[in-house]
């Protein structure tokens, strides 16, 4: 009987080997897929059990955790100034995440490679694993000012402020906004109700108007056309068409100035005057003269047509649209037709002018820190492109100073020279039925720019067809500039 017993032994060995081979397949080869499977609640549970890192502005957290005392879900994500920072932080809930909660998730949940050594020491010392901290470039005072200005007046729109020399985003506001605390709660019923309400809201509070939506830039776009013109032989003293309107080439439609006013004294005008008074006719004509290629080139140098822009939140690509005929080029020259920009793009444009033509990569994260606030990584200023020469930048600055002086409205800062441009952009299927968007882009101080800002008030804050960038958007922009310059 010994031969069969030996064979039985061999059989059992083979059975056990088969089990081990199969286990190798599951635990070594298949494991990544199993771990990442959406129905595998282990991964998420593990993450919920770990103390997620804070998102910091100044020295205070704008996203942090509170201990629940519960064993399965020991931490709940809380946002001390929820609505103010919601467009940046996004929200973190057991079922989803947006904003920086998503973009910086590996750091916050502790799985990022830069936290590897830290994780290893946690493992050895038996400390509870914690996520890393993300410090923002945001200036608390500017962010709060921008938020207050928008919400106090019940405005729909966005404010973006940049530090021209570095690309640091100093404020990023989108209104109406939402309270991420409602979405991060562990109470699943309350969460579901809040989600449903926010998604049903026709003002779309979950949309980030500062970076995720594009709108026609209106007259603020004339800065771009002017930059291209200055680069192509124009100067601030070049004579331009002062007529109150011009017929679009190849059509019976005419392109009028605002209220059909003539430019300058009506006989002759300079490029500087055209910008100061925001005349449409000369910029339509200049655009037509430069042609779509030159405009597209200038736009790309300023950051247009970049679908991969991340701050690290992903930014919608600003576009000139197709300019198939001269009429389209004329209309595009005044920021209408199919030209669409994000408030961030407009802020980048004026920041580039303020920074002598050098466009810096915009970013909202300044540093990555360990849970003990030791430095892991620092995001350094990075020049994206020299968009135009310092001379062009200086000429544009001159125009913007003149424009600011021409613009009315409240909020001028005593002793500070602001360089700005307003915009009032028609939009919608029938522009006579919808109130125009009000824009204001600016930087200050003009002689040594510290802050650049773009303000968009959708539908002019619904104060009627008389809404202009100067009346509605400029006071907000000036207040934010003031907060940034320490004046208040």
């Amino acid at each position, binding site marked *: *009987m*010994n*031969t*069969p*017993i*030996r064979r*039985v*032994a061999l*059989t*059992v*060995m083979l*059975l*056990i080997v*088969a*089990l*081990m081979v*199969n*286990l*190798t397949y*599951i*635990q*070594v080869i*298949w*494991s*990544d*897929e*199993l*771990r990442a*499977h959406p*129905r*595998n*609640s*282990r*991964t998420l*549970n*593990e993450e919920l059990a770990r103390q997620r890192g804070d998102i910091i502005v100044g020295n205070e957290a704008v996203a942090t955790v509170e201990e629940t005392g519960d*064993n*399965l879900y020991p931490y709940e994500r809380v946002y001390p100034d929820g609505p103010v920072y919601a467009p940046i932080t996004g929200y973190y809930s057991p079922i989803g995440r947006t904003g920086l909660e998503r973009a910086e998730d590996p750091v916050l949940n502790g799985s990022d490679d830069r936290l590897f050594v830290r994780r290893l020491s946690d493992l050895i010392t*038996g400390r509870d694993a914690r996520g890393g901290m993300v410090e923002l470039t945001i200036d608390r005072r500017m962010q709060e000012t921008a938020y207050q200005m928008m919400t106090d007046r019940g405005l729909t729109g966005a404010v973006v402020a940049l530090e021209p020399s570095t690309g640091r985003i100093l404020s990023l506001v989108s209104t109406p906004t939402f309270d991420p605390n409602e979405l991060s709660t562990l109470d699943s019923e309350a969460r579901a109700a809040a989600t449903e309400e926010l998604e049903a809201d026709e003002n779309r509070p979950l949309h980030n108007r500062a970076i995720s939506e594009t709108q026609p830039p209106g007259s603020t776009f004339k800065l771009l056309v002017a930059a291209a013109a200055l680069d192509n032989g124009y100067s601030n003293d070049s004579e331009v068409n002062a007529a109150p309107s011009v017929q679009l080439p190849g059509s019976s439609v005419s392109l009028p100035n605002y209220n059909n006013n003539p430019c300058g004294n009506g006989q002759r005008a300079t490029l500087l005057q055209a910008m100061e008074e925001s005349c449409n006719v000369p910029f339509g004509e200049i655009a037509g003269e430069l042609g779509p290629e030159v405009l597209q080139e200038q736009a790309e140098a300023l950051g247009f047509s970049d679908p991969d822009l991340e701050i690290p939140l992903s930014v919608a690509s600003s576009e000139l649209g197709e300019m198939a005929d001269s009429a389209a080029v004329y209309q595009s020259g005044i920021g209408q037709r199919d030209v669409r920009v994000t408030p961030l793009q407009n802020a980048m444009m004026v920041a580039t002018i303020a920074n002598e033509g050098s466009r810096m990569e915009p970013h909202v994260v300044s540093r990555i820190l360990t849970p003990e606030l030791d430095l892991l990584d620092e995001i350094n200023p990075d020049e994206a492109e020299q968009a135009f020469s310092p001379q062009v930048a200086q000429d544009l600055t001159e125009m913007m100073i003149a424009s600011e002086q021409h613009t009315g409205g409240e909020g001028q800062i005593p002793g500070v020279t602001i360089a700005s441009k307003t915009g009032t952009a028609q939009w919608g299927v029938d522009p006579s039925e919808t109130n125009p968007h009000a824009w204001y882009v600016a930087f200050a101080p003009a002689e040594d720019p510290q802050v650049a800002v773009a303000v968009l008030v959708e539908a002019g804050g619904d104060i009627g067809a008389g809404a202009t960038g100067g009346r509605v958007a400029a006071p907000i922009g000036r207040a934010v500039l003031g907060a940034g310059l320490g004046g208040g």
Partner: protein
Amino acid sequence: MSSPVDATSNPGQAATPSPPAVPTRRNTELLMLAFAAILVTIANVLVEANQEQELSTQLLYNGAAFLALFGIAHLAVRKWAPYADPLILPFAALLNGVGLIAIYRIDLADAAADPDHGYLVNRQIGWMVISVVLFVLILAFVKDHRLLARFGYTCGFVGLIALALPGFLPASMSSAGGAKIWIRIGGAGIQPGEFAKILLMIFFASFLVSKRDLFTVAGRRFLGMDFPRMRDMAPMLLAWAASVGVLVFERDLGTSLLFFGLVLVMIYVATERVSWVVIGLSLFAIGCVIAYPLFNHLRVRVLNWMDPLGRLDATDGDSFQLVQSLFGLGTGGIFGTGLGSGRPTLIPAAETDFIISAIGEEIGFVGVAAVLLLYLLLVMRGLRTALAVRDSFGKLLASGLAFIIGLQVFIVVGGATRLIPSTGITAPFLSYGGSSLLANYILVALLLLISHAARKPQPPSKPRPQQAPLAEAHTEMVARPT
């Protein structure tokens, strides 16, 4: 070998002056047991540290219970089976210890979710106490495994009744989790099938030994294979068919598979003919083809086996349990999440049928491979005992006892890891469950007895008078018959 009774094992011989010195290796056993206790305690500390962040008295209780019980078992072996294989008990002890840790760990998770949840580990320790008592009693009273051969038919009869009994009881007393395999009175319950397994094994071994000569002599050749005469095998096949039939009827797929494989192997070892294995496997294949459309629960398991991730929401019996098991194993990966840091309670029945997945999540592939190797070593020591023992009954019984552990591990682990369709049976020594634990300690006690018989020094044969070779022998005068 064909004689079931060996004349040399007369106890009276022990007094003879010079038995050859065979080391008993009992101290090796003690050392291995101590090693197992240390491993188990370390694992226990890790679980507590990760779960509670503090060490509780339960830790001392678990450790003390483990040491005390196996200390007693060791002393019993020392007294009644001193020459037994020194590795079998420590392997069983270590597996039992790993199981205790896993159950305790699942208890902690359950208790965290529901403060009223009782500690299963304490009940398991209770069952261990009963098991060890039974273990000691068997060593003390059976003494020689060959005694069991005399009760072959009795064992077979009792075994069949035990197996069939739950089928006749009302569902309230016998049914749980789809299978009708319990006898439950009040709060306590046992699964008679676990004991029937061993009783029937004794029957098969004694029957096969008594008929062994017939198989090898009588028979005919067909298709190049030797087939024994059917009538020689009839009682055996009848018992086999009855047990498998009963189990299928009770919807206990795993145990029926276990019986099927066990009997096949025992017949193969007894007859030394591969033909029986071929016939058996062919019948099995035919049986599967017939059963597949007939039994819905079987079909569901096969479907879940083929596409577990796709059937998470199947309405006719989803693959949730299997998928959770795969998720656990996959999440654990090569080295595991660490003892006490996984989420094994997400798998339904993690403390019984799917305990290997719960273990695999926290100690990873490396850990499960170690557990599987432990099982393999245990089986190998059992089969080695079968090789070494001199009587046929012992050989057959030891083969059966050892093989059934291996087969059971294959079925339960293969089921939980999607190597084969999953069927509900317990992992020997690891899983929570009194009947399983009791039966497996009986099994180990029997293996130790056989192994003791195998390694016990042979009393020196009576010195025969020196005889000259026949060729050189002188002739003798023989008295002439008158």
